[in-house]
């Protein structure tokens, strides 16, 4: 890879009232992900290249989206430009580009909506900042709607709950519909539809990987822990991000799940047909693809005849599973009604710990001084357990049950106020490295606080995107890549294997 042509932001000591940068217009105007090739766009149902009547078609598509979405309708009308969101986006804090302020990002789309669909914008465009949908605006859309990780931090702080994620999803859908797609997301979605996972890992390769894992883990622990694939009649179908089959630190998480299942004596399986929890359709705001991708999972569950579906560590996938599956491909009336459908692996492990099924040795993790990164989609777009905020409590309780040294980052940077890792929302691609590094700054600053104060050496996450992003960006901030750890690796290391036999 080429040497970076940008400076990594300097980490200042964490302050409760953060330094807000002065705006630097155009600071990130050059940041632009690779565009999708025609075949990528076509494979997911969009025109290959910019269509001839793109202005007209784009405006029309925008109108259709607003008509079909209460959120867009309300969000486009109600913003009063109070400025409460302006200092809440990690990309703004890291880049100082004013178009990375949530309201300004929304305004890129709002100005076009106003021009074509509101009285004031049609007759007094200058007065309300309405703009024609021209090439310059389209370029701004492409650049800056790919500088939003759809993390929803702004929606927490907005007095009306305006969620920039919804706006940025709509903008990407409009662009896709006129043939302007982003390579990373669209290429990956094409693979899921054909092969079943983001990596394009076919069934034989997946089988090999899992068999290899079984051998490695047995060598390591002396215990035959299984990684079953396509086993009909298993009780549990595990749907996990395909990164878990492939790379550190993800794969250690997968080993952790397997140890948990083994220790619980559970009958479980993976599916080669639905070997992906991720659903990038959400990032590009494509309802049709969202449903199609989710349908694979339902089909696999029915085909295998399982009783429960459990979802592995992945942020946006958990949002899609928890919040959208029932709507898109439900009802899940063929599953055992005793269990929530779907269930998060952390809910599953937490429940086993509560019932005393897992014997855990906390001291096995004494070399770790742990902090936990709340992934945005888990924190602000889903839940775990049966009370609001369970998504914050359960993972921490699991960690505390498995390790002695746990320290939270400052309160304004965790729970629903968590900072995105900087790589979510379909931005986890090398062509956006500058954005990713700068967007990671607020999280890194909070991490620095616990590193300096508590000598934290382990950053635990439950999201494949967060894990990949941190593995890549930690070194820019002079922290070792190995700091980033799967939650279920910590669990797996604490489990006393065989103690139930």
């Amino acid at each position, binding site marked *: 890879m080429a040497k970076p042509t940008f400076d990594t932001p300097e980490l200042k000591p964490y302050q409760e009232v953060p330094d807000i940068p002065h705006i630097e217009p155009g600071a990130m105007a050059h940041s632009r992900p690779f565009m999708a090739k025609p075949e990528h766009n076509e494979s997911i149902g969009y025109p290959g290249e910019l269509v001839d009547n793109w202005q007209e078609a784009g405006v029309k598509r925008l109108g259709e989206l607003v008509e079909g979405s209460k*959120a867009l309708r309300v969000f486009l*009308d109600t913003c009063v430009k109070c400025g*409460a969101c302006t200092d809440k986006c990690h990309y703004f804090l890291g880049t100082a580009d004013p178009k990375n302020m949530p309201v300004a990002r929304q305004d890129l789309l709002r100005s076009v909506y106003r021009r074509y669909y509101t009285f004031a914008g049609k007759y007094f465009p200058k007065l309300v900042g309405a703009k024609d949908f021209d090439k310059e605006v389209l370029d701004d859309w492409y650049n800056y709607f790919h500088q939003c990780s759809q993390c929803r931090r702004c929606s927490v702080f907005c007095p009306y709950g305006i969620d920039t994620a919804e706006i940025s999803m709509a903008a990407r859908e409009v662009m896709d519909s006129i043939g302007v797609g982003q390579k990373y997301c669209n290429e990956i979605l094409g693979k899921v539809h054909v092969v079943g996972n983001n990596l394009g890992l076919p069934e034989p390769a997946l089988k090999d990987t899992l068999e290899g894992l079984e051998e490695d883990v047995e060598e390591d622990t002396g215990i035959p822990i299984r990684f079953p694939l396509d086993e009909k009649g298993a009780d549990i179908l595990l749907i996990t991000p395909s990164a878990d089959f492939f790379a550190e630190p993800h794969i250690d998480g997968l080993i952790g799940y397997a140890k948990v299942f083994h220790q619980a004596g559970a009958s479980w399986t993976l599916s080669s047909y639905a070997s992906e929890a991720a659903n990038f359709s959400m990032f590009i705001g494509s309802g049709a693809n969202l449903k199609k991708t989710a349908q694979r999972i339902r089909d696999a569950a029915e085909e295998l005849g399982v009783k429960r579906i459990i979802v592995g560590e992945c942020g946006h996938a958990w949002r899609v599973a928890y*919040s959208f599956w*029932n*709507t898109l491909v439900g009802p899940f009336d063929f599953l055992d009604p005793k269990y929530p459908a*779907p269930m998060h692996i952390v809910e599953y492990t937490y429940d086993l710990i509560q019932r005393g099924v897992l014997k855990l040795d906390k001291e096995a993790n004494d070399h770790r001084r742990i902090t936990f990164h709340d992934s945005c989609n888990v924190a602000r777009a889903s839940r775990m357990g049966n009370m609001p*905020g369970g998504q914050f409590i359960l993972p921490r309780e699991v960690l505390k049950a498995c390790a002695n040294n746990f320290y939270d980052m400052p309160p304004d940077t965790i729970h*629903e106020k968590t900072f995105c890792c900087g790589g979510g929302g379909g931005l986890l691609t090398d062509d956006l490295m500058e954005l990713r590094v700068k967007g990671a700054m607020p999280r890194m600053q909070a991490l620095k606080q616990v590193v300096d104060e508590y000598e934290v050496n382990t950053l635990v996450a439950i999201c494949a995107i967060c894990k990949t992003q941190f593995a890549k960006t930690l070194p820019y901030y002079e922290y070792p890549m190995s700091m980033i750890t799967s939650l279920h690796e910590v669990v797996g290391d604490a489990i006393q294997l065989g103690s139930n036999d």
Partner: protein
Amino acid sequence: MTLSVVYAIFFYAATLFLLVGLARKIAIYARTPAPLKIPTTPAPITKAGVVWRMTKEVTVFRSLFFSNKWIWLFGWMFHVALALVLARHLRYFTEPVWGWVTLIQPFGKYAAFAMIAGLAGLWARRFLVDRVRYITNLSDHLILALLMAIALSGLSIKYLSHTDIVDIKAYVMGLMYFDLQPLPADGFVLLHFSLVIALMIVFPISKLLHAPGLFFSPTRVQVDNPREVRHTAGWTAE
């Protein structure tokens, strides 16, 4: 009398525009489907919980409080003061004046100053904070100017022109009961009335729609129960 008639026509037209405009917008908000569950979590898991969440948002601007103390201070001050001032104005619309309206008269008087202070604070931010300056359109200044002018002209009626409010009340009651009375030809009164008419027209076609919009914001009003209750609407119901 010409003046009375002209203003009466404008008042009736503006009232009609405001009511029809708002009703139309509210109908559109209510009718537009929310295809997916998107509450910003942690969110209430019951309807009663959502009512409580919204009560806090509407009465104390909870999210804004945790977001930015200056905007909260000025914004909340302005809105509460506005509510008091509006309540105080009920005395022009009721005969006999309701007991509680009489009770709040002295508070309403001071609220006008708080309203101006709040508006001034919000307006100052549009010049002084570079981030807010960047997102401000001409229309944002104009709405603040309009509200400020309404407040100042109202105060002027009270403290500068000493117009007989009995005449004003007679005119307003006349409008309500379609029995037109003469309008006191005082400059501040005419200005105040003109500006209020302008505000009524601007309301349903501007960002002032945040008032009804808030109650339809899916991130705030949806119940967090997607696993328990299957939600479908719009394209997800097809």
